[in-house]
């Protein structure tokens, strides 16, 4: 993944992923490296593999909704970054399109890029904090 800051106000980055990059982990690393704490981002591209999650209220965990071990278009990736216990936490959802044009989507668990993914991220001066929500069992942004 190569990146560049393309604007100062609002602080905006372009992140360009390459074949073989795994988006969730690379983005998490970037967030930690840059100290991101109040960001939103969107991306398009294409993937050779995607693992998508669905939030299960019974188990309070993300079930793997589907695994697509094939070339798919990354039609939409939308997400945000907030702090949980001082650490940036990336939260992203994706829609992918298969070769017949049908769409699959879910919570981003794993996405392997082929050949590119173009992500634009805006970071804000005010930080967002996440706290554990006892009802859902996951950390939600609290204002």
């Amino acid at each position: 993944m190569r990146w560049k800051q393309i604007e100062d106000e609002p602080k905006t980055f372009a992140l360009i992923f390459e074949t073989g990059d795994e988006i969730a982990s690379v983005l998490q690393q970037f967030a930690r490296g840059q100290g991101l704490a109040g960001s939103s981002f969107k991306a398009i591209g294409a993937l050779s593999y995607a693992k998508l999650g669905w939030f299960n209220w019974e188990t309070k965990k993300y079930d793997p909704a589907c695994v697509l071990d094939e070339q798919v278009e990354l039609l939409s990736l939308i997400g945000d970054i907030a702090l949980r216990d001082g650490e940036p936490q990336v939260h992203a959802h994706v829609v992918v399109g298969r070769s017949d044009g049908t769409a699959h989507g879910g919570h981003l668990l794993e996405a392997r890029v082929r050949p590119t993914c173009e992500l634009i991220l805006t970071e804000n001066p005010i930080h967002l904090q996440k706290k554990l929500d006892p009802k859902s069992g996951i950390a939600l942004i609290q204002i």
Partner: protein
Amino acid sequence: MIKIKRLGCVLVLIGLTATMAHSQDTAGDYVAPSEAVPRGKAPRMQVQLLNPGEPTKQYAVIFYQGDEAFSGLLEFAEKYHVTSAHFTAIGALSGATLGWFDPQRKMYKKIPINGQHEVIGMSGDIALYQGKPVVHTHMVVGTSDGTTRAGHVLDAYVSPTLEVMVTVDPVAMQKRFDPETDLTLIDPALK
């Protein structure tokens, strides 16, 4: 002659059936674009300005369990005097009503979404019509097997959260009524 009469009867019957099907569909299955949006259905919504002092404002608008997000976004726009904005969101829902615009009827056909779904992608904008903000948003929702449904958002009941990142621009965007569709459309030339 007899043949023609019979054909006439059949045509009348087809016509009647079609009319009945039409009226059955219309009852509750369609909604007019001008339908009033309720208020007070997102009591847990929270708003944070993320870049104080800048002309282009970045807000986090966060919804929680039970909030109805579409009317909540309109309340946000009214309260913060938004005249032009665009946003993206992710989260999850306990249910929603999406719409598909039927150009013949000039109405949205309701697409009911029942049960827990991921909000995989929601994007939209806010512009003014007759001085009042109007929220226009579409979403893709995901089921437990990763298949998707999508449409124009009529209502969306949040569970457990929906994170909306809004960019509010300093220059107002205006909508005008389009008699061909009965929709209000953004007209960049309108001041």
